[in-house]
């Protein structure tokens, strides 16, 4: 069976199953979501109005046995940045969609204005769109459990909590993982877009559609073997990530002076050891839990983990560096268990770890609450936000808006999106990615930390400007291509250092589709995606003046290196010369 485009129209609650247009055939993941958004969404539309669309797409290799290929991309116009957005996550959805032959699920239009929220259920060539009043006002774990009870554990689930229902800009979308827990998708307020379309939950049931067609199964298997070997033999993807998870970064970024602390005031944190991956791994060992855990079935890296409290009871899974940094170093909570508890709450209500943590940092700077007050955060997340109180809505509006409301100058955002856990003044290549990526301040778009700090793909001095624009450009092109395959971004570590890795990946794509792509074709795919996204943003009104760092970083030096952002506008804009 050929793959199809599934289209749902919320304005009249109808659907169609369409042939895939020729020009979309070779695309998947981010390449496909950004192409569809650019083709079908008016860049000037209001992101929460009738003319925005959500596009879900599994990667090119999703649904196959390819290691780490289970990422689902979601594209839309972002209500936070006002530009195009692609966000991807693990969970079981990519494999299920691919097996069912769903090349993309496009959701468009708005239903009539009333209190009704809907449940979309996708099966073979069919979609039902039904009101689901019993789940309105419920959070993600309850929604997830209800769906699993109804359909069994094999169904894919996307859902929003109360922040998404209320169209808050910090809201994201939850995706079921293999253990029946939650991964998250959709920085940039994509939960609010789902809420605007009045969709509480989407389920996808592949039924007995099991196999994804392979043009050349033998070649595919051999390439997957070589690819898996590259992932397992690399010291980062094979050893470090499984043992410590992504939180291993706390200490090294701190030692390098690039760990943003107390709302981007300092480059190191006193709490680093408490927050470190080493400490988290120690706790997991003492208390039970798991240091290795995959966000989808085919993951051979398993950076995720299961974290228990002091009494050995489950608290959270997928306890990641960005989250621990955001609430630990940036907002100043000095107790890892409090942060784990907050992580679980945030999964349940469905808000983005980075945006929410950066928002609390700015709110503390503005005097709304003290730095490091875990109890205050918990109260806001469990009472104020779900009930939509003014306080809840203020925090729910994101870092940029809170900065404006409280008259704060030190607001670490680009294109109104909160910065992740790397200081752009002290890790300048990463700063170039923040200002130039069409996504707003985002780290995965071009992870220059790899070469600036981690010595992956060589070393470029993080405190100097030389080579950073080129580094970021090359990484962004490669990441756009990798984001189209359905691969988790951590395959970038072996890809940077092991010459066998990328050819094996390309061989798998060719063997899956009977294609003859070369390395250059893949690079061109990455370039085209970036240009397409950039063109969308220009039409949406995001110009050069939006490719800039917040001004305070140009005049306020960052301890311990007294680092400053010193790129000229011309140097930044040269990013797009390709």
């Amino acid at each position, binding site marked *: 069976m050929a793959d199809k485009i599934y289209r749902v129209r919320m304005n009249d609650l109808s659907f169609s199953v369409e042939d895939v247009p020729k020009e979309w055939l070779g695309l998947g993941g981010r390449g496909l979501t950004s192409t569809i958004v650019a083709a079908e969404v008016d860049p000037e539309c209001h992101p929460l109005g009738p003319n925005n669309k959500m596009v879900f797409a599994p990667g090119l290799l999703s649904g196959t046995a390819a290691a780490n290929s289970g990422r689902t991309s979601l594209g839309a116009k972002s209500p936070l940045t006002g530009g195009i957005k692609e966000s991807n996550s693990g969970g079981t959805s990519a494999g299920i969609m691919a097996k069912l032959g769903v090349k993309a699920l496009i959701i468009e239009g708005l239903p009539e204005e009333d209190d009704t929220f809907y449940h979309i259920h996708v099966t073979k060539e069919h979609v039902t769109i039904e009101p689901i009043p019993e789940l309105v006002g419920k959070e993600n774990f309850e929604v997830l459990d209800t769906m699993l009870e109804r359909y069994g554990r094999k169904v894919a689930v996307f859902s929003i909590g109360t922040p998404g229902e209320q169209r808050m800009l910090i809201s994201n979308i939850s995706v079921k993982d293999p253990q029946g827990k939650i991964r998250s998708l959709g920085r940039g307020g994509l939960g609010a877009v789902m809420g605007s379309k009045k969709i509480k939950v989407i389920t996808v049931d592949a039924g007995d559609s099991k196999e994804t067609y392979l043009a050349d199964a033998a070649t595919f298997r051999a390439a997957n073997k070589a690819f898996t070997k590259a992932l397992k033999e690399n010291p980062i993807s094979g050893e470090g990530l499984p043992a410590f998870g992504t939180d291993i970064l706390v200490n090294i970024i701190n030692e*390098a002076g690039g760990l943003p602390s107390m709302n981007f005031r300092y480059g190191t944190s006193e709490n680093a050891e408490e927050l470190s991956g080493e400490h988290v791994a120690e706790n997991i060992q003492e208390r039970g839990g798991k240091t290795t855990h995959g966000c989808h079935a085919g993951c051979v890296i398993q950076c995720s983990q299961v974290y228990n409290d002091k009494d050995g009871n489950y608290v959270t899974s997928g306890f990641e560096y960005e989250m621990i940094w955001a609430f630990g170093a940036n907002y100043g909570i000095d107790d890892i268990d409090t942060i784990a508890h907050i992580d679980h709450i945030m999964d349940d209500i469905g808000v983005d770890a980075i945006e929410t943590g950066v928002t609390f940092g700015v709110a503390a700077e503005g005097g709304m609450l003290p730095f490091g007050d875990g109890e205050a955060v918990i109260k806001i997340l469990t009472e104020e936000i779900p009930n939509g109180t003014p306080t809840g809505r203020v925090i729910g509006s994101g870092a940029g808006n809170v900065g404006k409301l409280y008259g704060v100058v030190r607001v670490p955002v680009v294109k109104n999106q909160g910065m992740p856990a790397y200081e752009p003044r002290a890790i300048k290549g990463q700063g170039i990615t923040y200002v130039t990526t069409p996504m707003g301040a985002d780290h995965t778009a071009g992870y220059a930390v790899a070469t600036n700090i981690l010595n992956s793909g060589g070393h470029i001095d993080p*405190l100097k400007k030389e080579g950073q624009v080129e580094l970021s450009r090359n990484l962004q092109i490669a990441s756009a291509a990798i984001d189209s395959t359905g691969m988790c971004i951590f395959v970038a570590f072996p890809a940077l250092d092991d010459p066998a890795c990328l050819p094996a990946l390309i061989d798998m794509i060719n063997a899956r589709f009977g294609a003859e792509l070369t390395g250059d074709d893949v690079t061109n795919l990455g370039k085209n995606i970036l240009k397409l996204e950039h063109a969308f943003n220009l039409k949406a009104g995001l110009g050069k003046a939006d490719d800039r760092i917040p001004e305070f970083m140009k005049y306020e030096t960052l301890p311990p290196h007294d680092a400053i952002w010193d790129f000229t506008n011309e140097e930044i804009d040269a990013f797009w010369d390709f």
Partner: protein
Amino acid sequence: MAEITVTVKLFAQYREGKFKVEQRQYPEGTTVGEVIAETGIAVDRYPIGVMIINGRHVEEDRILEAGDTLALFPKVGGG
């Protein structure tokens, strides 16, 4: 020969059976590579990834000075 005191910090797998942070004495002129050998960290199993002195990346031939803080990491990554 005169001795200098430096702070040595170990991370990730290098801590196994060793220490997190210690003040240690070395003869003047000691290099980072010599400290790595002296601590006996498991570089055979986990090759050196990153060496940082006082917040700056260095190479193994870098000579330590009194009061330096040296941080040693195997290859680590995340995102």
